[in-house]
């Protein structure tokens, strides 16, 4: 379903042409079901992600221990040919599904983002490529705060 939505979106873009003024995203619905899912699995189901294969070809560069859970920087790179999107799940956040990043027309499958992490958690990444899903995860530990004053 994830894959289908992207294809439809890009098809529309092509149909309307490059001079399209409105942002493409306005045409695709923000997936409320996935974003409100309380587990990674439910989020994946809502996005139509099925049977993601474990892979070494997704590189997640994030801190082993984050200095501040309010801003955890991550660089995510997919080395899988034909990557069209990268989705991020912060497994122990109240709503794990954090976002999907789509690459088209020559964008390199890489994204840098900064996210809020409530407690130590695996950060799971799912890549869509060639109609299949691939996944990798990285543990991020969040320490508690400073003086509390």
């Amino acid at each position, binding site marked *: 379903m994830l894959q289908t939505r992207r294809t439809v979106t890009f098809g529309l873009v092509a149909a309307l042409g490059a001079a399209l003024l409105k942002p493409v995203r306005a045409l695709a619905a923000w997936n409320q079901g996935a974003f409100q899912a309380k587990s990674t699995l439910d989020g994946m189901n809502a996005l139509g992600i099925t049977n993601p294969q474990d892979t070494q070809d997704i590189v997640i560069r994030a801190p082993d221990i984050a200095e501040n859970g309010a801003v955890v920087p991550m660089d995510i790179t997919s080395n899988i040919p034909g990557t069209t999107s990268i989705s991020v799940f912060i497994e122990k956040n109240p709503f794990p599904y954090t976002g999907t990043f789509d690459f088209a027309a020559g964008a390199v499958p890489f994204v840098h983002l900064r996210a809020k992490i409530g407690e130590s958690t695996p950060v799971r990444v799912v890549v869509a490529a060639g109609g299949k899903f691939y996944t990798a995860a990285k543990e991020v530990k969040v*320490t*508690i705060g400073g*003086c*509390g*004053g």
Partner: protein
Amino acid sequence: MKLKTLALLAGGATVLASCATGPGGTHREAVRLMQRDFKPVGIAGMDRLKQDELQAACNKYNNDPPKEAADKLQKAQYATVKWPADGKLLGNWKEGEKIAQRGRGMAWNDKPGKTSRGEPNGGSCYNCHQIGPATTSFGTIGPSLYQFGKLRGYGQDIQRYAYAKIYNAKAYVACSEMPRFGHSGTLTEQQMKDLAALLMDPASPVNQ
């Protein structure tokens, strides 16, 4: 020094006179400016800018008083310790752990004896000390207190030391950076007993 004297001339004869006594003049001028530029907020009144004898002495000696002066200061501070009327020095280590974790109290928005959230004042202990093994985010300004009782013994003398050190740290090291939790009215007698138990109860995780 000469330039400073000139600059301070405008401040009036009293300032000049104090300046002639040396670096103390700069200290006095700094205090005057702080008293002018600071305003009271809630429980933090202007009296907090008035140094007591110990604070003034520590500033005077750059926190390193000569032995004789240090002994005198420590003796006076030890005399401020109010011992529990019931003679019991150890409370509940579980309560002590909470007090050790909490870093709030005594600041602008806090209330007398309570934090702005209505909790009892904290002791901020983990800010500076390693204590229980479960907390890895501890500070290092003070020494590690892990296995405090196990290493020193659980006797009455060590219990008294732990209680008095929490009550008035300056009774042992005149210009220690550790607050005087009993003397300043930050912690209650029961809270100090609970902290002493955290360090001294053989059942406390500190001593495992």
